[in-house]
């Protein structure tokens, strides 16, 4: 299991943005979803998740809203803003380019 600190900050942002692109989620749900989808390979700690969420909120790419969660308590649900959607697209393209480039170099023996 790779430690989440191995993830560079930008990648975490990408994961978060992608995760909430389908529907708004709260912090716990985001971390759980990433864990699930990556087959337990990526485990995001609270210490990495919440600062990232706050930064993304400060920059205007996601918007937080307090709602009732399924468990009866209130939780802060994050959703993508329109600018956030554009940013997500940009970061996906960047990731694509990066991973292709890395693959090329690796395959170069």
């Amino acid at each position, binding site marked *: 299991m790779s430690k989440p600190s191995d993830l560079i900050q930008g990648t975490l942002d990408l994961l978060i943005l992608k995760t909430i692109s389908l529907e708004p989620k*709260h*912090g*716990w749900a985001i971390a759980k979803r990433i864990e699930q989808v990556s087959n337990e390979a990526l485990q995001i*700690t*609270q*210490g990495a998740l*919440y*600062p*990232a969420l*706050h*930064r993304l*909120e*400060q*920059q*205007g790419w996601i918007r937080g809203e*307090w709602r009732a*969660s399924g*468990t009866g*308590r*209130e*939780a*802060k649900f994050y959703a993508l803003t329109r*600018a956030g959607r554009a940013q997500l697209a940009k970061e996906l393209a960047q990731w694509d380019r990066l991973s292709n480039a890395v693959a090329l170099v690796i395959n170069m023996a």
Partner: protein
Amino acid sequence: MNPRRWLGAMKMRLRTLLHRGRVERELDKELRFHLQQQIEENIASGLPPEDARYAAIRRLGGAEQIKEECRDMRQTAYLEDLGKDLRYAGRALRKSPGFAAAIVLTLGLSIGANSAIFSVIDGVLLKPLPYPHSDRIVRLFFSSNSYPKFPLNPFDFRDFRSRSHSFDSLAAFTRSDVQLSGSGEPVRLAAFRVTAGYFRVLGLGPEQGREFDAKDELPGSGRVVILSDRLWRTQFGAAPDIVGQKITLDSQPFTVLGVMPPGTKHPGNDYHALPYGDSVDAWWPFTFEGNPNQRGSHYMEGIGRLKPGKTPAEAQAEMDALVTEVSREHGRDGGGWHMLVIPLYREIVGADERMLLVLLGAVGLVLLIACANAANLLLARATARQREIAVRMALGAARSRLLRQMLTESLLLALAGGGFGALLALGGVRALVALLPAGFPRVDSIHVNASVFGFTLLVALATGLLFGLAPAMQSSRVNVQQALREGARGATGSKHHQRLRDALVVAEVGLASVLLVGAGLMLRSFVNLLRMDPGFRPDHVLTANLSLPDTEYKTPASALHFEDQLTANLAAAPGVKYAGIGTDLPWTGYDENDGGFLIQGEQPPPGHEFHARYHFASPDYFRALGIPLVRGRFFTGADNHDAPAVLIINSTMARLYWPHRDALGGRVSFEDNPKEKDWMTVVGIVGDVKDQPASGGAEPAFWWPMAQVPLLNGGVMSVAVRSDSDTTGLADVLRREVHRLDPTLAVADVRQMDQIADADLATARFSFFLVGLFAALAITLAAIGTYGVISYSVGQRTHEFGMRMALGAARTDVLRLVLSQGTRLALPGVILGAAGALALARVLRSLIFEVSPTDPLTFAAVGTLVLVVAMVACYIPARRATEADPMVALRSE
């Protein structure tokens, strides 16, 4: 970021800043929710509740750190830290009030002085003149090697005007006061005769009515006048129908042609010392009377507005060619004359610009010294706090945070100093304006304004950064281990520090020395000015100006009768020793010349003509003013219209124009082909009187007896009355006698000659006073700096001194050690300062009078003074060094 997103982000930041509490609570809630979810997950996978809780807490990590990181992410941490830094800085400064006060005072004084001088400079030098496109207005002077700025001849001017292509408009003016009579007391008006288009040159136009045109210049016309706004309001009650009305000037009817708008400023003129500003009462046309081929008299001032795109140099080249052309047409060979075309701004501000810039330089130096001092103080403090810094860094404070905090402290001090300085500037400007010599250009445009405050603030911030950064970077580079290990004694291993501080002190002393040399030179020059022989005796002399309108005094004989009667009556009055009348007084800047006259038996140098200042005088004029007779005699009552024509010349004229023989008995003629009756004989040679006290030398001059030659000036004359003792009652005596003879005459400009003399010394006194003030300030600051450094060093070395004395050194040895340390700082400073002063010699030369800028006496005196001051500054710490107790030193080992 696009603007909308940026706005949203800013709103977010503002919200987190303002609703800090709520944001914190929300974060707390979020984290607790997350924890709850984790606990429930743990329980769901089979852990008992207690263990589930602990597992969850362990997994999730420290909440505080997470919160801190989130806070950082919110990027408002910066501002909160700033608030904390400010409070911390405030507390720290309050604990050492002496130090804080020293810095604030140091900075405040120099910033205040800087801003005050800058306000003056802004008003005088930087503000544009109050005419549209004033950069295109130029003054024109006739110029040669011996007379660099000579007035123009009116007919020459007319030729130039019609032939020149460089100017939009060209005009000339000459001072020609008139007497306004009518209801009430007659009033003397300050007036100028101007050619048509004069106002067009300035870019101004009458508020009411119209300007003069070419018709008004024709001989016989010109009985029209344009009034100033102030005159219209005060003398005519702002009558709305003033245009077209007739008023009486010099007993003649003049039609009012127009009124100028308020605030019309006169473009400066030296003669009669009309200060730059709104003091002209009336303008009337100059008419070209007399023989157009008579090109000898020069008394017009030229002014012109250049065509767009033309430079003064181009205009000057064209005018030079015209001068030669016109001269040749009149049978003169040009005689080395050309035209000088100067921008108006330069002409008005001119000499004073130099002085102001030098003052600004001086103030800049003082500011530098103040910064060095402040830097020194802060550096010393930082060194002393090294232990504290080391501890904080060991506890995990970031270097950048510490740096920021020290910077905040410095900026706080700088701003406090700046605020104090701003207050000083306000008061200082008012004080400076009050101290400025009379006639200083553009005094009325000096205010404290927004740009000065901006400048002050800039200076404050720059000094804060400058001296905040250096010590801050120094202290934060301290080796933590070393600092902690050094124990209670504090780090002595800061050789770097010490050297920097020593360098600062040397620089301070050097800069202060430069200022002291400047002040010393100005002092000597001022003393020279005071001791200078004026050429006459200005004490106990009362002067006044009169004008006799030629309608009342139609013949020269009637004017002469008045003059004779007046001088006789005055001389008979009690308390009066001598009374004289002449066309002008010494030291008023009078510079009207006549030229092209003939001297029997002498030839002018090739290509040149004879020129000299011309005046008229009554017999006792010279005695009244105390102008000494060198040879020959003064005029007497016998030199009247029927007697042979005579002349009195001054020593300079005698020396220049009769180089090989005695001028006494020489003959001069003002006609081209003189007959016997046209020759005038020189009967007396008098002492030289300069145009202005600080003029280089006297110009050649001659006097005609008033009895023999009809007055040229339109009846304007000056009266000089010498008393044996007190001149206070004389003014009334003078007025009484004038009005006894003619009640319609106005007695104007009643002044004591001392006052006129004094006013001219004022500029020199002012500069000397200011530079002296700055020099005193500088040397005080340098002394404080030296004291600080030596004192600190002694404090560090107390242990060492104690050891020395325990090992047998006498107290005097220790004293000598400390004093020599001080000398090692002061001496290089003095040498540097001397070198700097020598380098600036050229700049200083223009400000001093009859003193060499490399005067060895001044340099020696300054060097000695600085060394003595440095020694005095070291004395107290030296004494303290000798009081180091050897027992204490030994015990602490």
